[in-house]
């Protein structure tokens, strides 16, 4: 308790000092807060997201900032834990008084933040996938990545084209996989697809051959769809080849990063998944509006961090750009005005596709924004 007292006092003094400095300066910085899953099971989402935000905020500040004001980025790690995200968001709102929040790497951390930002009336751009974030529409909440429902629809459409009607579904039993699983069950009938085997695994399982054996032995399976992210899908893919299963394997957009190919190695050959244009930047036709954006993002990220950006890095890029553009258009960091401007985002071309939001659509992406890619010789190949 004493330690707390002292800490509190230190924080208080620091805050007072901060205020004094703030008054002295001509223009306060625009404060962008973020709670990201930088460590923990979802760190492959949060880590590139943090790197992207830091890198672009630095670059923009070097160019003089936005509206003549510098941008201050405050990132806290929630390790993928929703209760930690709650306390981070409280800190961002109440202690750091941020103007806008970008982030929430996972659906669970995003949903933990939603009631707080709605109450505090601060614009919030989530980087997480599930459809529940924007359905029903919440006044202050937006998101940049494609939804899990869209991923399922894209995959099922491709299956339908190949004449596949009976599939096995294997999904991770944590947030992303579970939500994807539920959405898959919902939309499968629309594409005439029947799920004849339905298995799950834990994110850290070192082996899923038992589950895959069951799917393999389910009568009439023509393809398998895996919903998950992190090392899980790589384990699934390796075990899939080990068991000699020959029907096509589909993954979700949760594996759209080079590290998946590196982990799964040769087993990843022939795997299909829906992904944003980012991963196939150089294969996009020259007239594709996304081409320029994703090519330069790829180049800048690689130059700074030495590795190809994942689509998750792209979500953070889009979130930041949409936020800054809205602030620019609003002419101030006034929260209500910025919110209105985010909602009016129209024709923004980002790494995820063309974004046109509306009062009823707080994501603004269509199925066209998704590309079906296949992994061939250790690289992504655009197939539609």
């Amino acid at each position, binding site marked *: 308790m004493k*330690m707390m007292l002292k800490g509190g006092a230190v924080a208080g003094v620091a805050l007072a000092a901060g205020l004094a400095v703030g008054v002295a300066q001509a223009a306060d910085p625009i404060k962008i807060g973020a709670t990201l899953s930088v460590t923990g099971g979802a760190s492959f989402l949060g880590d590139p997201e943090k790197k992207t935000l830091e890198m672009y905020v630095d670059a923009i500040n070097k160019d003089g900032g936005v509206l003549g004001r510098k941008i201050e980025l405050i990132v806290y*790690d929630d390790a993928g834990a*929703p209760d930690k995200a709650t*306390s981070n968001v409280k*800190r961002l709102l109440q202690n750091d008084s941020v103007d806008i929040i970008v982030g929430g790497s996972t659906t669970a951390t995003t949903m933990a933040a939603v009631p707080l930002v709605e109450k505090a009336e601060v614009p919030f751009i989530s980087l997480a996938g599930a459809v529940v974030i924007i359905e029903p529409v919440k006044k202050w909440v937006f998101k940049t990545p494609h939804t899990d429902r869209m991923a399922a629809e894209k995959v099922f459409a491709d299956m339908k084209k190949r004449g596949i009607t009976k599939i096995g579904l294997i999904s991770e039993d944590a947030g992303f996989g579970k939500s994807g699983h539920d959405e898959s069950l919902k939309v499968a009938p629309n594409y005439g697809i029947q799920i004849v085997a339905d298995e799950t695994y834990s994110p850290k399982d070192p082996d899923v051959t038992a589950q895959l054996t069951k799917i393999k032995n389910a009568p009439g399976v023509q393809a398998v769809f895996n919903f998950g992210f992190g090392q899980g899908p790589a384990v699934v893919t390796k075990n899939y080849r080990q068991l000699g299963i020959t029907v096509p394997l589909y993954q979700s957009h949760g594996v759209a990063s080079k590290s998946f190919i590196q982990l799964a190695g040769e087993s990843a050959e022939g795997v299909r998944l829906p992904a944003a244009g980012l991963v196939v930047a150089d294969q996009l036709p020259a007239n594709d509006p996304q081409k320029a954006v994703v090519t330069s993002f790829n180049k800048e990220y690689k130059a700074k961090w030495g590795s190809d950006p994942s689509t998750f890095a792209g979500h953070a890029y889009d979130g930041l750009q949409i936020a800054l553009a809205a602030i620019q258009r609003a002419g101030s960091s006034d929260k209500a005005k910025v919110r209105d401007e985010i909602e009016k985002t129209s024709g923004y071309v980002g790494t995820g596709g063309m974004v046109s939001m509306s009062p009823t659509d707080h994501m603004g992406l269509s199925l066209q924004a998704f590309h079906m890619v296949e992994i061939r010789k250790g690289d992504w190949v655009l197939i539609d």
Partner: protein
Amino acid sequence: MQRNRYIGLAVLAIVIALLPLAFSNNYHYDIAILAGFNAIVCVGLNLLVGYAGQISLGHAGFFALGAYASGILTTRYGVPPLLALLSGAVFVGFLAFVLARPILRLKGHYLAMATLGIGIIISIVLNTESWITGGPDGLMTDAFSVAGVALTTEKTWYWVVGGLLLFAVWLALNIIDSPIGRALRALHGSEVGAQVVGVDTTQYKVLVFVISAVFASVVGSLFAHYVGLMTPTSAGFMKSVELVAMVVFGGMASTYGAVVGAAILTSLPQFLATLHDYEAVVLGAVLMGTMIFMPRGLLPTMVRLIRRWGQ
């Protein structure tokens, strides 16, 4: 002893009363409230770990069961929060009672394993049965209200939690000074010895196991209402370890030590958050260093130092 107890309680009350003077915003209240929640659980857990010498790596399970009981009963069945909290406590108390006999026959690390297993099983059930628990994405909970008055602001929560903490400490001190406490201490010293002189060790162990589980359950219920969101991770192994770490860090067999341990280990990660990648390194080093150099825990070591310096 009696006098000491009231001095200690008075000091704690004064600290709780004066602490808000150092707060400049709701975030500070938030940290204090979370610290308070952990402190109450630790005061209960300390009875088991510190006094009875029985380790538990599964108390987060009881915490989460209380939380989910409240969350599920209030949101899905419209049960008033206070009634839900009490139902949760009764359920957890009963569960702990049933489990206690077979489990507390185990000793040392075997007991650690068994409690750990129970905690993990609870978290897997909460994670899987999403039709009622909301699964890994968690369960939203409404604000706590009694007789139509809702607890919403951080300030009111702070005073409620502060009051409860004082009550919990008072209760724990009373238990420790009662014949139960004496029996427990005998048990910690030598279980066989205690049995030989006629102490029904099993009965006391069961009792204190149930008490500590109920403490965790009640706090879990309040936590669910305060944060407004429950997830299965709060039943996890790491959370259980965190709770035991708080007890040991502050000082085993010291009720105030448990409070200090909870306060420090709750707020420390907040201070370290600005270190980003180095947070885990520093947290691990602090935990190790404190336990190596102050194996009795922070508070007892400090008290001894002050006494020695006073002489």
